[in-house]
C-alpha cells in the first residue's frame, strides 16, 4: 500500500497520552429541568490504548467525548490528560465527528490544513498537509471541494484533518455511523492500521458492538442515561482481527447481554 509506505518514511512521535476521568458527572438544563447525562464516570486510559465506549443511543457517550475534547466542562469531577487538567480544547486531542463537518468553502487541502493554520504553523509545515492527505489515500482530490466528495471520502478528509496535528488522543464520535457497510469495513481496517502506526490513544464512541470489538483493546459498556460504567471488557486479541473470530463472537454475545439485547441472540 502506498499509504503505508509513506507513513513509514515519515515518523511521528508515537506517543499517546494517558487519560484520567475521575468521578465525572454532567447534566443539561432543558427548559428549566435538569437532565443528568453522566453519573460518576471514572476511567483510566493508558497511553496508546484503543478504548471503545459502547452504549444505547442517547446515553451520553458523545457528551463524555465532548468533555474529553474540552468542548464542555463537567458539572463535577475532573478530567486529566497526562496529569494535566483538561480546561478547554487543545490540538493534542482532536475529534472526528459523526458528520465530517468539512468547511464547504475550503478545498480538501485547505480543510486538512485547518489545524496548522489555526495554530499559525502552516507556512513552515506545508508538507505535513500533503502527507496527511496521502495517508488517507486522497492525493488525487487535493483541490476538490467537499460537495464533490462521497460520504466515505469526506470522512477520510476529516480523519486527515485530525491526523495532521499529530494528536496524542484521537477522539472518534461514531465516525463511521453514516457510511455504507462496505466503506465502513474498509475504514475500520484503516483506522486500526493508522492507530498501530501512530500510537495515539484512541477513544471511540459507537453503538455497534461488532465495530467496538473489531477495533478496540477495551470496550467500556455504558448504561442507559444517565450513563454509568456498566462493564469494562478487555479484548485481548491480536490485530488484524477477523470478524468471524469465535472469541469475539462470544464477547459480543456477553456485551449485547449487558445491553439487554440477549434475546436477539
Amino acid at each position, binding site marked *: 500500500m502506498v499509504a503505508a509506505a509513506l507513513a513509514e518514511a515519515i515518523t511521528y512521535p508515537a506517543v499517546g497520552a494517558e487519560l484520567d476521568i475521575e468521578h465525572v458527572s454532567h447534566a443539561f438544563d432543558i427548559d428549566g429541568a435538569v437532565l443528568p447525562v453522566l453519573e460518576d464516570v471514572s476511567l483510566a486510559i493508558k497511553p496508546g490504548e484503543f478504548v471503545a465506549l459502547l452504549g444505547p443511543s442517547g446515553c451520553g457517550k458523545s457528551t463524555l467525548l465532548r468533555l474529553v475534547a474540552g468542548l464542555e466542562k463537567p458539572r463535577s469531577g475532573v478530567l486529566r490528560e497526562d496529569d494535566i487538567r483538561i480546561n478547554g480544547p487543545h490540538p493534542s486531542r482532536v475529534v472526528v465527528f459523526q458528520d465530517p463537518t468539512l*468547511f464547504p468553502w475550503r478545498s480538501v487541502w485547505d480543510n486538512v490544513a485547518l489545524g496548522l493554520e489555526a495554530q499559525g504553523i502552516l507556512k513552515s509545515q506545508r508538507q505535513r498537509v500533503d502527507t496527511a492527505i496521502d495517508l488517507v489515500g486522497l492525493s488525487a482530490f487535493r483541490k476538490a471541494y467537499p*460537495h464533490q466528495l462521497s460520504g466515505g471520502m469526506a470522512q477520510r478528509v476529516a480523519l486527515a484533518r485530525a491526523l495532521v496535528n499529530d494528536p496524542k488522543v484521537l477522539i472518534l464520535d461514531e465516525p463511521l455511523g453514516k457510511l455504507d457497510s462496505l466503506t465502513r469495513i474498509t475504514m475500520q481496517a484503516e483506522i486500526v492500521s493508522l492507530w498501530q502506526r501512530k500510537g495515539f490513544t484512541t477513544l471511540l464512541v459507537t453503538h455497534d458492538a461488532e465495530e467496538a470489538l473489531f477495533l478496540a483493546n477495551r470496550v467500556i459498556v455504558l448504561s442507559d442515561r444517565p450513563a454509568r460504567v456498566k462493564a469494562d471488557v478487555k479484548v485481548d486479541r491480536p490485530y488484524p482481527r477477523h470478524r468471524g473470530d469465535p472469541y469475539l463472537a462470544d464477547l459480543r454475545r456477553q456485551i449485547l447481554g449487558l445491553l439487554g439485547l440477549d434475546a436477539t441472540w
Partner: protein
Amino acid sequence: MSTYSVSDASAAAGQAAAGVSPGWLEKLRSGGYGAGLATGAAWLAFGASCLYWEDLGDWSRTNGVAIGAFLIAALALLGTLGADFLGGAGVALRRRAPWLVALGSFLTLWEIATAKFGWLPLPFFPPPQAIVEVYTDDLPKLFNSVIASVKLQLGGYIIGAAIGFLTGVSIGWSQKVGYWVHPVLRFIGPLPATAWLPFAFFTFPSSWSASTFLIALATGFPVTVLTWSGVASVPNAYYDVARTLGAKPSFLVLKVAIPAALPHVFVGLFMGLGSSFAVLVVAEMIGVKAGLGWYLQWAQGWAAYANMYAALIVMSLLCSGAITVLFKTRDRLLVWQKGVVKW
C-alpha cells in the same frame, strides 16, 4: 435571474460543439438559417420603414437610423452565413438571433406608430430617431450625468456595504453588541431611506454628502441584517471543529464565521443595490443638481421626452450592469457553493 446564471455558459459551449459539425448547405436545406434570415429581414424592414414614408415631425437622424438598420441587417446576413467560421461570436449570434428578430420587428412597429402615422400621441412617444438624436447631440450632458450618478452611487454603496457588513458581523458574533444594536436596527431599519430626505438635506453640509448618507443607509440595512443572519446561522459544529484544532476567537470570526456567512452577505448586497438605486434617483431628482435622476427631471420639465427615454435606457443599462458585476463577483468568490446553495 437566469440571465446571470453560470449554466448559460455551459449550455452555449454545448451548442457550440453541436453547431460546428453540419455543413452550411445542409443547414440551408434544413432551415437552420431561418432565424438569421429573419433577423436580416426584420432590420431591413426597420430601415425601409424609416425611408419609405415621410416623417410627421422634424427629426434630423432619420436617414442615419435607416443606414444603421441596413448595416445591422447586412451584418446579420453575413453572420448567418459565416457563423460557423466565427467561433464563439458566431455561436453567440446564433443564440441571440430570435431576440434580434423581435427587436427589429419592434423597432419597425415603433417607427411606423410614431414618426410615420402618429398612432401614439407624439410628444410623449418619440420615434427611435429622436432618441438616437439625443445620444448624438446631447452626449456631453448625458455623459456627465452618468459620471455623476456612478460616483454618487459607488461612494454611498461602498460605505453602506462596508458599515453594514461590519455591523452584521459584530451583532452576529457578540451578544453584547447585539443587545445595543438590534433594537436600533429594528426601529430604524424598516424606515424607507427616502423618508430621511428632509432630515439629510438640512443636516449635511452638502446635498452630495446627504445623498451619500441616504444611499449608504439604503444599502446598509439589508447588508447588516443578512450578514447578521448569515453569521448567526453558522452551525456550531463548525466552531467545535475549529476549536478542537486549536483555533483562537479571531480565527473563528475571520476564517469560520465570515466565509460561512458570505452567501447570505451577497443576498444582502444584492438587495441593498436594488434599494440604493431607488434612493439615488430620488436624491438626484430632489437634492443633487447632477446625475441621471436630475437629467430625467430636467427632461420632463422641458417636455423633452426623447431625452427622458434616452436617459431611462442608459439608467437601466447601468443598473443591470451593476447587478451583473455583483453576480459575477459572487460566482467567482463562491465557486465552492456551486450545487450547494442557489438563489
